[in-house]
């Protein structure tokens, strides 16, 4: 799984999306697949109640399990429900882009994601770094920041920084807020936020994402003292979780079924549900209580 990349890619998407899109929705979409599903992966204890997945990778990315949260159709359904409930096209697009970015980003670890679920349970993975959630939170952190996973996070930090204008006050007040005036306006009124506080709230996940990268990297080098291994599929010292190798013919067959199934489902959803909702959202009156 990816760590800071999920926060950092939200700014990259905001910067490069020309359509009207809500930043808060992008961020929520980027966090959504792991938002409530990660706790049982590492184990959660509330009072006398505790729950930990028997096989974290299968629970997190597989089926049966919560693996469908990392599929492309999940993003469409969640964003569609929000569009139906709010008539807000900027939130629909933001959630969709954010969730898809998360699902695609997680294809780089050794387990990958079921992108075309429910049409196939085929996992798509490049195996760039080891999936190691079964080692617990700290074991996972150390494995990730000792492997190409940490490099992947650094890549997204650079990608976010190449669009540095996205972090300016001017960008925030001329693009981010006008794209989503209802929610930013509500936050400002509800919590009495100053412009400085609003900008800080917007930038917070960038600072947090960058800082957690460096903090975990330093921790794994100086306190955990695990060796760095930037080889493909590393680090070598962790017992990584992966699926058995399969025949190319099975892979191709599953992929064709997945692409065709998803394409047909998306067309039907758009034809009979999405387009009416989208047209209704487009005709919805502009928010009157902007900042």
């Amino acid at each position, binding site marked *: 799984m990816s760590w800071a990349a999920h*926060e950092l890619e939200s700014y990259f998407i905001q910067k490069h999306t020309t359509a009207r899109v809500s930043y808060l929705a992008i961020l929520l979409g980027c*966090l959504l697949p792991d938002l409530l599903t990660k706790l049982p992966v590492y184990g959660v204890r509330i009072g006398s109640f505790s729950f930990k997945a028997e096989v974290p990778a299968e629970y997190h990315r597989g089926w049966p399990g919560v693996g469908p949260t990392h599929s492309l159709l999940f993003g469409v359904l969640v964003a569609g429900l929000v569009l139906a409930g709010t008539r807000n096209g900027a939130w629909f697009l933001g959630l969709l882009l954010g969730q898809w970015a998360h699902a695609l980003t997680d294809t780089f670890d050794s387990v990958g994601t079921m992108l075309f679920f429910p049409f196939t349970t085929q996992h798509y993975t490049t195996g760039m770094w080891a999936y190691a959630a079964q080692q617990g*939170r*700290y074991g996972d952190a150390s494995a990730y920041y000792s492997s190409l996973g940490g490099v992947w996070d650094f890549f997204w930090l650079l990608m976010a920084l190449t669009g540095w204008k996205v972090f300016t006050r001017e960008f925030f007040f001329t693009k981010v807020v006008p794209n989503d005036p209802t929610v930013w306006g509500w936050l400002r009124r509800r919590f009495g936020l100053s412009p400085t506080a609003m900008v*800080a709230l917007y930038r*917070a996940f960038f600072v947090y994402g960058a*800082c957690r990268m460096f*903090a*975990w990297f*330093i921790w794994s080098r100086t306190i955990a003292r695990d060796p760095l291994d930037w080889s493909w599929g590393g680090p070598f010292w962790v017992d990584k979780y992966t699926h058995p190798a399969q025949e190319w013919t099975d892979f191709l067959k599953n992929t064709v079924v997945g692409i065709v199934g998803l394409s047909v489902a998306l067309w039907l959803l758009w034809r009979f549900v999405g387009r009416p909702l989208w047209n209704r959202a487009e005709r919805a009156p502009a928010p009157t209580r902007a900042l």
Partner: protein
Amino acid sequence: MPSDDDVDPRAEYIAYAIAAVLLVVIGVFVRTPILNWIVGPAFVVTVVVVLTPLLTR
């Protein structure tokens, strides 16, 4: 664009730098209790909002 809240941009940058350094240093030792997606961003916002007016003065 709304009028600025009389903030010195340099003070704001220093506040962000302090927040970042604190988050990394504390994060190395405290780890998950601060390096999670709720406390981490809240820590950044709190430090910036508290320190920026103080440094502006």
